[in-house]
């Protein structure tokens, strides 16, 4: 049972997550859901009750996920965070999870405001966006998608809690992607940031919403059935055999060209447009487990006999200390 405010965008994201996990047929106990602190980070308590949950400390979820993943890379990891949890107190850990290409889906429920402490601007608030009491934000925003691209990340997407059609396939793609899949979901705060003058309100988001690339998820061994206009659709094969079909809504947008994508996202930001969809994907980048040559048997369940060299080796190795 969600305890968030009625109409909160986060509950829609929860709904999309549940639908995606159901459609992907992931056994709940093979999924781990992690979060930090804040309204967004409460949500893992409201879905997939048979999944292991870890509500960590503020801004530190990426490190917990990193350790958990190192111990057992065989689970699906979903992180749910917010704009405060990721872009302020957790900015350090977020950027380093991008650099490690930690294999997890990382959702930012982005509403530009601190809800639990009642309405302070967050680091994603746009310049000039107004607080409920009228103050205009004076500092430039941090865009998590641009951060991902700048740091050489492998998956950056943006969506809107009100667009389930777009969000569900993106979540599926993020779960299937091997690496750190970031989805920045504009998820309006009905209580503190849904007023006139806010650039993270439902109305503003709907008015300035600009889908550039739609991503359809196609499970392994299933044929691509939908018909696409020639030249506008490109399938990207994922490591498990599934595919993401990227459909260009904006014909000039190329989600496989890092610098071009970054330029267009920045231009959209300047124009006050919210560019959405699967903004960038690089399926070839090795993720943390591959980089560290980690075994297929999780370290957490590896037999002790495999780990302990035994007394004979201990005696032999001590010769160098004599």
């Amino acid at each position, binding site marked *: 049972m969600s305890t968030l405010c009625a109409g909160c965008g986060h509950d829609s994201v929860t709904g999309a997550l549940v639908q995606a996990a159901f459609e992907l047929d992931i056994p709940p106990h093979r999924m781990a859901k992690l979060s930090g602190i804040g309204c967004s980070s409460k949500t893992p308590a409201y879905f997939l009750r048979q999944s292991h949950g870890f509500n960590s400390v503020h801004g530190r979820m*990426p490190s917990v996920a990193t*350790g958990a993943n190192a111990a*057992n890379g065989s689970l699906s990891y979903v992180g749910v965070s917010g704009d405060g949890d990721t872009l302020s107190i957790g900015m350090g*850990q977020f950027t380093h999870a991008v650099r490690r290409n930690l294999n997890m889906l990382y959702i930012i429920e982005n509403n530009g405001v601190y809800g639990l402490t009642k309405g302070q601007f967050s680091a994603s608030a746009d310049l000039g966006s107004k607080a409920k009491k009228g103050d205009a934000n004076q500092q430039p925003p941090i865009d998590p998608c641009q951060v991902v691209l700048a740091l050489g990340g492998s998956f950056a997407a943006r969506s809107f809690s009100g667009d389930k059609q777009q969000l569900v396939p993106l979540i599926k793609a993020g779960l299937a992607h091997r690496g750190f899949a970031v989805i920045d979901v504009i998820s309006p705060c009905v209580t503190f940031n849904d007023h006139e003058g806010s650039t993270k309100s439902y109305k503003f988001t709907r008015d300035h919403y600009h889908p550039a690339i739609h991503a359809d998820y196609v499970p392994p061994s299933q044929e691509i059935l939908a018909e696409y206009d020639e030249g506008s659709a490109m399938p990207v094969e994922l490591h498990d055999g599934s595919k993401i079909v990227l459909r260009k809504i904006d014909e000039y947008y190329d989600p496989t060209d890092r610098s071009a994508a970054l330029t267009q996202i920045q231009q959209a930001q300047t124009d006050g447009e919210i560019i959405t969809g699967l903004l960038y994907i690089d399926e070839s980048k090795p993720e943390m487990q591959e980089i560290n*040559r980690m075994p297929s048997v999780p370290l957490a369940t590896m037999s*002790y006999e495999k780990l302990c060299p035994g007394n004979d080796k201990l005696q032999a190795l001590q010769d160098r200390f004599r």
Partner: protein
Amino acid sequence: MSTRPGNNDFTVKIANVNGTGSASANALLMKTFFRMGIPVVGKNYFPSNIQGLPTWYEIRVSGEGYLARSGRVDVMVAMNAETYQKDLEEVAPGGYLIYDSTWPRAKTLHRDDISVIGIPLAKMCNEHFDTARSRVLMKNVAYVGAIAGLLDLDLDVIRDSLRQTFAAKAHLADANQQAIELGYNYVRENYQCPLPFQAIADNKTSDHVMIDGNTATALGCLYAGATVGAWYPITPSTSVMDAFKGFCEKYRVDPDTGENNYAIIQAEDELAAAGMVLGAGWSGARAFTPTSGPGISLMNEFLGYGYFTEIPAVFIDVQRCGPSTGMPTRTQQADVMSCAYASHGDTRHVLLFPANPEECFYMAVQAFDLAEQLQTPVIMLTDLDIGMNDWMAADFKWDDAYKPSRGKVLGEKELQEIEQFHRYLDSDGDAIPYRTLPGVHPKGAYFTRGSGHNMYGAYTEDAGEYQEIVDRLRRKWETAKCYVPQVEQEYSEQYRTGIIAYGSSDGAVREARDQLHKAGVGTNYLRVKAFPFTDDVQEFLDAHDRIYVVEQNRDAQLHNLLLLETRVSQEKLIPILHYNGLPINAAVITDRISQEVDKVVAA
């Protein structure tokens, strides 16, 4: 106390500039004593710097096997003109000062009560070696040769060591050997050799190794089956992970697949390192992070989380001089309080206090067992003196029958059989609940949260439910007393004066007790190995009229912890404190206790 050197009882100190390669020369000298069968201990006083600042290395040769600093210098090798004055002052009366007479010393640098031995080290090396780098390096090797000549070291032992060290580079072995002979021959030809005190071959070092505590700790982590190490580099703990990596590369790479049966993650900071360790522990891996005081400060947040959510994790604090950045390359035991109650709210953590590298090895293994048995973070507190200096230790042995104690973890089969799993129920009455690991079984799923939770693992803001959890955690603390290592004690009913110490203060206390005993002052001794304190500690406190608590910090931290956690009265607990960053020596303890005993006698 002994104030004069004798055979196999003297201290050699080498003053040098860091970055000149003196470490290998000093190691060669240490090893020579050790291989001659004479107990020896080395203390490195080095700057927080890479090149160009003063550095000292102190070698105590002690036939009786004393491990602490001697507190005196019998032979000073003064290789650093900048510290010459200070080094000269430090030589004990009757001692010797060796210096590079290539540049004659100023007349002012003189003492009547010591002998000065000038050796033209630079001149000789310039004549015999070609490159600038080798001339600098060989000067250091040449003073080892000079000491060999003065103290009658076994040249065959030195030759063998060089051959072993440079097995793959014969020309280096030859060059080093040549430098040894330059120094050796010069003193033999120009000075009365050997000195009145010398090294006499003995057989007291067989079945022993020379090892530093950080290497021993890493070895313990390897043998405990630790698989995830997360860390942020910090002096003086860095070599724990360096050593662990080296051992893993040798013993943990699957020969068939080339895969690593370990994960070492260099974190972005200590906060993240702590989070990684908890994440891995939550998932069921044995995970650890080595750090030092500043890292512990940053890890407080997750230490509290781990305590409240009951996640096993091992933290290793190689203590250095605080507060703040303090003196990163100097030693202290000053993190006891900040570790014992680390993090906000009511928290208390299991602490382990190894006294030497040997205990670092065995206690590291124990730390993992305790963390999983008790489902809580365990902090092992060593310090720079133990961690980075070479100590003589009895050979490490491993019981191949050892099985890790994984604590109360419900597996797939057990979960299938039970009706419902609740994370924080005290089913066994020992205040330790059962846990499950992610991915094992749908019935094992639960929600880990640092916010208020009840015994079923659900979120709560209910007064009673919350209190039930924190009360059980307090009871678990009582259970911990049965699991942690017991004290080490030397007790005789006839003595009413006790000494309590822990960690690296042990060597100085043992030596001080011998000195006091010779002066007719008998003491009992208890060495604390863990927090919570076991019942033996209370009994020891009760059995004595005066108890000296010896430790290496300014604020008497263990003393204070004893006042807080036992029923001892403040009047009879007397701190003996040493906290200047150098390892404690016996005189600090002996002088203080003998003064007070004299006072008591006079009164």
